[in-house]
């Protein structure tokens, strides 16, 4: 099968690029998730210093385009004597970016657990850590699943930026093929389709989850915990 002059070799090359896109996304989600969990916990910590520091971190990272972060790591660090491979530069930039956004999303989810739940746990003599781990986080996780799945779409799209530091993922493999075929419109249309195929199922899934969570909250008995005046 051929589209334009795209042949099986090109397809294999694209597939390999797509695989690296998935790998990079996974690295970004896992690393960013772990770091983001730390950010979220710091954002709701009782220590003013931790709250302030994590808040500043989020502000700084969210105020920097991931593209610029990649430039900084890949082209900038060698300038002061550190050589960084493209995968590490791109991966690190994405991990940091994801951690700030997921940290904020998850902080919102923790704060979405009704205040009286904290209070009830406190009155049962649970320590602050026990309150967080046994009462608040299990509820926050449920709230967090749909927006987190939705955000993973964002992560996959952002991995395309790794192409600018020469990392051969999906977008970069498209550029390379285009350099030999010189049919940019066809090539990029195919690339866009592959991205769509990766992202759309996740978007749909997150929307389904959101609707389900919404109906769970609307069920009258479920309102019990939200009924505080």
């Amino acid at each position, binding site marked *: 099968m051929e589209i334009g002059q795209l042949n099986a070799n090109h397809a294999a090359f694209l597939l390999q690029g797509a695989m690296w896109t998935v790998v990079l996304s996974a690295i970004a989600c896992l690393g960013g998730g772990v770091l983001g969990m730390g950010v979220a916990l710091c954002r709701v910590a009782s220590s003013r210093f931790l709250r302030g520091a994590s808040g500043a971190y989020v502000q700084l990272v969210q105020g920097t385009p991931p593209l610029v972060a990649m430039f900084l790591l890949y082209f900038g660090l060698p300038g002061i004597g550190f050589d960084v491979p493209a995968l590490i530069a791109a991966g690190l930039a994405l991990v940091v970016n994801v951690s700030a956004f997921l940290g904020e999303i998850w902080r919102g989810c923790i704060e979405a657990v009704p205040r009286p739940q904290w209070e009830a746990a406190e009155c049962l003599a649970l320590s602050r850590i026990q309150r967080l781990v046994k009462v608040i986080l299990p509820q926050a996780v449920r709230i967090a699943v749909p927006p987190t799945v939705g955000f993973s779409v964002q992560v996959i799209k952002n991995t395309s930026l790794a192409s600018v530091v020469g990392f051969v993922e999906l977008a970069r493999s498209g550029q390379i093929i285009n350099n030999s075929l010189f049919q940019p419109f066809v090539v990029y249309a195919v690339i866009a389709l592959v991205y769509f195929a990766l992202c759309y199922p996740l978007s749909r899934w997150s929307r389904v989850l959101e609707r389900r969570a919404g109906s769970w909250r609307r069920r009258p008995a479920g309102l*019990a915990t939200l009924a505080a005046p």
Partner: protein
Amino acid sequence: MTDKDPVVELRDVHKSFGALKVLDGVSLTVARGEVAVIIGRSGSGKSTALRCIDRLEVIDDGEIVVCGHRLTDAKLNLRALRQDVGIVFQSYNLFPHLTVAQNITLAPVSVKRVSRAEALETAQAVLRQVGLQDKADAYPEQLSGGQQQRAAIARSLAMKPKVMLFDEVTSALDPELTAEVLRVMEDLAASGMTMVVVTHEMSFARRIADQLVFMHGGRVRETGPGDILLDPQTPELRQFMSHELHAATR
């Protein structure tokens, strides 16, 4: 300790939220085994007084001693206080992600380090006490409001507290559901539990109270046995009673 030991003692307690004075010199003593019922309009400071006893609110001035814990003490052991005091809220506040049994065993296992088996046994016992022995494995949202509130009472009882606080626990319930919760509370009072109850249920208050406390404008205006409701001494209580009567017959 003798029977007349004070379990809860408030002396000249003051508390403001910003410019709003909520408690304006409240004093109150509850002896072991006694049931104190606080009544008054919304905004009279009765709920705040109750929340101060479990140190959910920090007071501005005065002194509170609960089960030997001096609440104004800088070295106050909050978790020890909370093991001695059980509190039940208007909005139940059961943990929705845990079953009734898990709700009840959570604190004994993680705070008191009781074995899981023993905690489960206690859970069965307190559930029997509130008439929910067959609901141990239900999730809160599968229960009616009255059942949820009884489960919340059981959860507090499982910590074997020395005093139980009830903050308008029936205000969110229909009349029939209210009755089943009040019955549980009456049984509890009869078993000798020290209780401080904030409520709007006047006939229940009269029936159950060893000491009835009428609050108005952040102060205790009248206090005495339940029968003070029949013969109010202050115009505020008289007005409050006629208002309540009105509401009841409407």
